[in-house]
């Protein structure tokens, strides 16, 4: 009872005190957040770079070195550092520094959200040699088979791109430019193929006929 009375008669804290306590806690919180951001940034950047490098090596079999390239509006030139954008692609070279193929990133709408993928392209034989999904939120158990189902991914290990890639019903693949769709995830399968076709449309006319300059010291 007495404490109740005390609390009722206790003076209201002034607005200065309220503002000050919010400002101080906000400031401290900001400091902590900056601290953790700075502390984890190198690891996060490194993780992302490693992820991308691993993906490039996965979609271009036999590659042991890669070089970042950039389309500058007219031609494709070697790029050192800087941020990747939609005009960036990667060239892969084997151990004796011979050009193997390009790794092209492309993205587009999937069943639920944007699918971002990377695929390996061999310009000499005009075919796709590998595909890796970098980001997707397809339905677990159905749509996520675009990267979990080995049989579907294997479609992209040797796939002709001319005149364009076509999705067919599972088990009916008969031509080199056809992809067996996943039963129960037709939309996701078609989305993957459409994204690759769009990537081809964007890039093929821009890529030089001759392979780009030999592998520099670039990023390994």
């Amino acid at each position, binding site marked *: 009872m007495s404490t109740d009375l005390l609390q009722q008669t206790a003076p209201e*804290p002034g607005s200065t005190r*309220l503002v000050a306590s919010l400002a101080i806690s906000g400031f401290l919180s900001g400091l*902590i957040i900056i601290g*953790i951001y700075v502390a984890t940034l190198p690891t996060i950047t490194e993780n992302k770079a490693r992820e991308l490098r691993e993906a490039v090596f996965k979609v271009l079999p036999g590659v042991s070195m890669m070089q970042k390239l950039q389309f500058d509006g007219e031609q494709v030139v070697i790029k050192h550092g800087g941020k990747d954008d939609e005009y960036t692609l990667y060239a892969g070279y084997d151990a004796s520094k011979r050009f193997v193929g390009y790794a092209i990133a492309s993205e587009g709408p999937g069943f639920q959200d944007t699918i971002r993928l990377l695929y390996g392209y061999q310009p000499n034989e005009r075919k796709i040699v590998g595909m890796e999904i970098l980001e997707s939120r397809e339905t677990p158990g159905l749509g996520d088979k675009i990267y979990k189902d080995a049989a579907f991914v294997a479609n992209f290990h040797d796939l002709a791109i001319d005149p364009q890639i076509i999705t067919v019903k599972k088990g009916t693949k008969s031509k080199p430019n056809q992809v067996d769709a996943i039963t129960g995830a037709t939309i996701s399968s078609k989305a993957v193929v459409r994204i690759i076709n769009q990537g081809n449309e964007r890039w093929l006319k821009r890529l030089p006929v001759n392979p780009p300059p030999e592998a520099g010291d670039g990023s390994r």
Partner: protein
Amino acid sequence: MATPQTAYQEMLKGLWRDNPVFVQVLGMCPMLAVTNSAVNAIAMGLATFFVLVGSSFLVSSMKSLIPKQVRISVYVIIIATFVTVADYTLLALFPTVHKELGAFIPLIVANCMILGRQEAFASKHTVKYAVMDAIGMAGGFMVALFALGAVREILGEGKLFGLSLFGEHFEPWVIMILPPGGFITLGLLLLLFNWVGERKKAFLDQVATAQVTGNR
């Protein structure tokens, strides 16, 4: 809850009697969204554990410094800071787990269970009790997430922690890892909890009646 309790009892109540999920039915959003596998459930449980215990500790130790009028905003700032720390730590150390949990780590801020514990408990008790209560509640939340995640992964993919359980011939119940499976499993678990609770109450009533008649 009016009777004074030991710190140990404060912890135990979160695990069973006042379980945040099965009894208080709080924190349903992460509960349903990330429990499609046991690993995700545990990762989410650990992140929530870290945030809840950390914020309860801080809120309880600074309760005399926080003016009553702005306490909720200060709690949210504290919780958000812990969540950001958990978010970046997961992103740096376990990028694959972070990829799976996606947007739901930042959303821990909006988990009403956490803010609820600050307002209802940590701000009124000493540090020791607040931390014990947070450990119990977060533990209970993690147990519930794991129960749901394990059931859904076993039935939905025929696996537990990614290990195949039933061999080649098992046809996964895909619906269990889709959203409806989450609701179905949660409903059944709530039913189980309530049934056990009823049984216990009936039993205690019976004992009480027996004692009364025996005393006569």
